[in-house]
């Protein structure tokens, strides 16, 4: 017995669920439930996606997060301000400088500290180096998701040089712990400037090399053009930020929109895309690496002399109050909301992570695509579980 239901579709009994694809009726089958992650080669850490599959087609996706949860926000309530600083770069571990930066900005602005200009410049230099490194991973991983290995090795080859540079300054390759309330920990070593200038001369040619290998490849184009489209209004209303937002054509970069530190002294572009697809997001990251090179060069040229930090009391006690400070991290807006009650420890510390927003977009973006596109779109959003799960 069949009768048209409310949608006008033939009701063919219990399993009539998803009866149509592109307007044509299909024979209903059982849907396959598939765990993708936490231990999967391309879920960027420990993201778990529960897929409802119909053949190769993804009907719906449930992202499950929390496999990397360390309770950072609660830990912060039991640490002094300086102790918590060491934990910050352990959140979004590919862009640790930005995590620290947002945190120290919040504390400094609560305490009304004036920074020496050299400290601000050093912050910009290390941060932009860190941005390049993070985009290296983003592009390399994205290509790995698409099944191409060589771009990954090429980006990691150059990431190694950037890592060496940042290690010269901070002494660390990943968990920098470089920022201090009132400045930075160390001044530049003497060998940094020539080495960094050498890198700046070397690197733009390498970006062109990546583009030759990746951007004009027909397979790459057919995998990414028109894939995972986020229209601008959708991106804004979901709260996306960073290259994911700019790929949709929204020119929003905190470095320009709400200039912090000394960014308004530098001359650089904010690259935006037009279509909001995976390709535009990739292209934004490539362009941002070029702009970062420009910023570092200008910062090195105009590097002022002077101290790199101001004296602060050994036990920081910011006055009571609350504050939100954000920086433009490689993955978007990384914000720190801090409530102080005038004591030794933050009363509440809340972080805003851009990857979390991007993950919340996943079910909407992935439904109706194939498994392979799911990986491609997920890779193009550059989500990182370290920041999301905290």
């Amino acid at each position, binding site marked *: 017995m069949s009768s048209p239901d409310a949608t006008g579709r033939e009701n063919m009994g219990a399993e009539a669920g998803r009866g149509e694809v592109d307007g*044509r009726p299909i024979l209903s089958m059982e849907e396959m439930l598939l765990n993708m992650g936490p231990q999967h080669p391309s879920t960027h850490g420990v993201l778990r996606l529960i897929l409802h599959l119909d*053949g190769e087609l993804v009907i719906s996706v449930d992202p499950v997060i929390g496999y990397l949860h360390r309770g950072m926000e609660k830990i912060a309530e039991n640490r002094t301000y300086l102790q918590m600083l060491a934990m910050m770069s352990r959140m979004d571990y590919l862009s640790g400088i930005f995590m620290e930066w947002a945190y120290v900005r919040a504390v400094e602005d609560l305490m009304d500290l004036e920074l020496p200009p050299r400290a601000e410049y050093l912050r910009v230099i290390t941060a932009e180096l860190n941005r390049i490194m993070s985009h290296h991973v983003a592009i390399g991983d994205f290509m790995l998701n698409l099944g191409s290995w060589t771009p990954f090795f090429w980006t990691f080859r150059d990431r190694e040089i950037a890592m060496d540079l940042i290690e010269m300054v901070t002494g660390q390759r990943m968990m920098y712990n470089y920022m201090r309330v009132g400045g930075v920990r160390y001044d530049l070593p003497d060998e940094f400037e020539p080495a960094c200038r050498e890198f700046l001369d070397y690197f733009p040619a390498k970006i062109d090399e990546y583009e030759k290998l990746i951007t004009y490849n027909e397979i790459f184009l057919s995998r990414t053009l028109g894939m995972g489209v986020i229209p601008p209004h959708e991106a804004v209303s979901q709260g996306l930020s960073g290259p994911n937002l700019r790929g949709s054509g929204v020119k929003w970069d905190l470095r320009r929109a709400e200039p912090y530190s000394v960014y308004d002294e530098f001359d650089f572009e904010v690259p935006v895309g037009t279509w909001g697809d995976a390709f535009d997001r990739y292209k934004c990251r490539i362009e941002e690496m070029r702009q970062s090179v420009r910023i570092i060069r200008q910062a090195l040229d105009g590097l002022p002399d002077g101290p790199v930090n101001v004296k602060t009391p050994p036990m920081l006690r910011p006055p009571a109050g609350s504050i939100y400070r954000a920086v433009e991290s490689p993955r978007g807006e990384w914000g720190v909301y801090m409530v102080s009650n005038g004591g030794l420890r933050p009363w509440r510390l809340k972080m805003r992570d851009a990857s979390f927003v991007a993950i919340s977009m996943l079910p909407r973006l992935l439904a109706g695509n*194939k498994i392979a596109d799911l990986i491609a779109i997920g890779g193009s959003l550059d989500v990182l579980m370290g920041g999301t799960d905290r």
Partner: protein
Amino acid sequence: MTPDYSHSYLSVAVLSILDVLFILGVLGFSRLIQRRHAYPEKLTPYECGVPPIGDARIPFAVRYYIFALLFLIFEVEAVFLFPWAMTFDSLGTGGFVAMMIFIGVLLFGLIYAWGRGALEWV
């Protein structure tokens, strides 16, 4: 001189038997020297580190069956093509024209399937 083809086929048969024996031998020898320690967790099918949800063997939409049907048609076509290619000279123009009509019909079928959207992956 005509080569003795029956002898050749016999050697193919013997070689395939030797092949199977070789594989079983290698696997058996490997089994003898390896340490075996299996427990249920190790033997659970891999599904990214969590217990599998649902069964892998369910009525499952295999969208490739259209391609399988088309493949069957073209496979049969090729079986006709091979003898034609071999006797091309002796068949002459008549054989050529006949084959062109045959290929034309097949090509029409392909274009029809294309037009109907059978070549789209749904």
